[in-house]
């Protein structure tokens, strides 16, 4: 039996949390995305809506997630900067955050400035989302390689 080595490396799927913070309760978008990412070979932690920011941070910590996907309708995206701040406080700066949903252009600029990697709008292709998640996960793992 060999020990160590990267025997499993290529079998290690990206790990993403698909969640909703704030009040909105529409989960069609997040469910369709979660199902697609699973079918694209990823490991998806799918949460119910109304997650507290502290809960999402704990989840990302324990699961060692590569990416957090926040699904937002209404104005819940206005809470995302708070999530970014909480991630920094928890030393989870390496975790990438993407946002999907209805986000007005002005708010999109604000989110990117706050550190969100990408914002997806209604009509975005699932394949594009999957590609983005894969790329972000790969970047994070390279960044963290060898460190605990």
């Amino acid at each position, binding site marked *: 039996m060999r020990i160590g080595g990267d025997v499993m490396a290529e079998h290690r799927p990206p790990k993403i949390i698909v969640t909703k913070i*704030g*009040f*909105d*309760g*529409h*989960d*069609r978008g997040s*469910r*369709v995305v*979660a*199902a*697609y990412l*699973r079918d694209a070979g990823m490991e*998806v932690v*799918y*949460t*119910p*809506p*109304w997650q507290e920011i502290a809960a999402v941070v704990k989840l990302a910590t324990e699961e060692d997630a590569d990416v957090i996907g926040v699904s937002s309708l*209404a*104005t*819940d995206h*206005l*809470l995302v900067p*708070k999530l970014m701040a909480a991630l920094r406080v928890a030393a989870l700066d390496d975790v990438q955050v993407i946002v999907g949903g*209805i986000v*007005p*252009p*002005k708010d999109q600029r604000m989110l990117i400035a706050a550190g969100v990697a990408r914002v997806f*709008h*209604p*009509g975005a*292709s*699932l*394949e594009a989302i999957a590609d983005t998640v894969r790329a972000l996960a790969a970047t994070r793992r390279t960044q963290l390689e060898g460190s605990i």
Partner: protein
Amino acid sequence: MNKPIVKPMARTEFEQGERRWQAAFDASPGARSDAANRSGIEVKPLYTPQDWSGERYLEALGFPGEYPNTRGIYPSMHRGRSWTQRQLIGLGVPEDYNARLKELLAHGATAVSLIPCNSVFRGYDADEVPEELLGTCGTVVNTVDDMERALADIPLEKISCALNDPSPFTLLALVLAVARRRGIAWTKITGTSNQSDCISHYVANHMFFRLALQGARRVLTDHIAFCNAQVPGWNPLSVVGQHMQQAGATPAESMAFTLASAIQYAEDCQARGMDPDHFLPRVTFFFDISVSFFEEIAKFRAARRLWARIARERFGAKDPKAWRFKFHAQSSGVDLTRQQPLNNIARVAVQAMAGIFGGLQSLHTDSYDEVVSVPTAEAARVAVATQNILREEAHLTDVIDPLGGSYYVETLTDQMQEKIESIIARIDAAGGMYKAVEQGLVQRMIGDSAFAAQQRIERGEQTVVGVNAYQTDEDPDAYAVLEYPQRERIAAQVTRLRAYKAQRSNAAAAKALDALARAAQGTENVMARVVEAAEAGATHGEICACLRRELGFGQPLAVV
């Protein structure tokens, strides 16, 4: 393409004509004979009396206002009285809402509809939540004073009120408290507890889901009993198909799930000893209208027929009023696009027409910019004007059920009915809607349909103009986006709430909340106590918190 197997010589002129047409059709360039609608029903290029003939008129259709109501629940339908133009509005603080409401009433809207802030939907007072989320999608109403301001100068005894107000129906309690203050008898209050259907919120659009499912079930039955007795002009039960369709259910699925839910609620009322002839007339429905024009019309006509039969045969109702399938419908926001938003005006017009031909009782038309942000005033005006144009320029109200007798529409109505019935049978087999949703069966079906639809769009099999066809390069910033409510106004609202809590009798409010808790623990009517609590000065958040403690916090099932 279905070529008939070699038949003997065509006997009749009809068959000859049909064959001639089929041959010419097949030879036509680009002629496709395979198409299916969203519910999966195959749609042929041509329908003839072979598909449906007028001989079936009396058995299948009947006359408007008569069992089985296929052509309409009233004898005169829109020719007698137009559908109610019930535009949903809700924004910011109560004064803003009041101003927008008066504007809409002046422009032809004929009823009140209140969408509360998301914080209210979630069961919280304004001082319990992050301020940036307040007042952005609806009106912040937490107290009797707030409701008083929201409905200032509105004659409650004359205007019908639709409140988006899920269990435990605090907004209705506040309205009744205001009515009491104004000296208006509750028997004069009319309207609907829009979206009082707890099952659909458990399954989809969870924002409305506040109490644990079985707790919400009990409160709903109490609410129906309370209203039937004390506010007889009020429709306490509004069963919702909209959320499930927006979550991805096909039109047939969403209608089936809705009817199955209505069956559960009616069974609960019957078990409580209520008389179907008494409570069924006060049941209303609320549906999405997709842009699949004919399918929606058939969906509504089939539902009317089905519901009449369910009411009469499954519940033994004898009063014709109890067989009526009354519904409000809203143009589907899911079909609207962010790309080329002005196209949405055309989509909404088509959806509205489908609803009108489908025989709705009240209609909300979406604003074209709904997908970009909360609608602007100008876009909201276009939405109302759309209805006015359909009624007064296109004269869609002149004829009752104008598509009745159409070979296609009647065939499709029958086919939709069959599909709906088979899904209801599946739910029955699972033990009814409550069991089916607790097991996740319904959620999985909806999820599968949603996924399939998304795949069709991504593969280009289903066209969405501006998204996967006819795209243009456009600047998304080009369309005006509603500014969020001013932070100062929201901050002032929160301050006002704190002041309210300080100056009311905390003892009276606490006592009423105690009584409410005890009612929840026992068998007293919870709704009666909710209203008493509102009148004693308890706030919306306090009432919700109390019932969540007693009956459980509502968590939907996470199913992928």
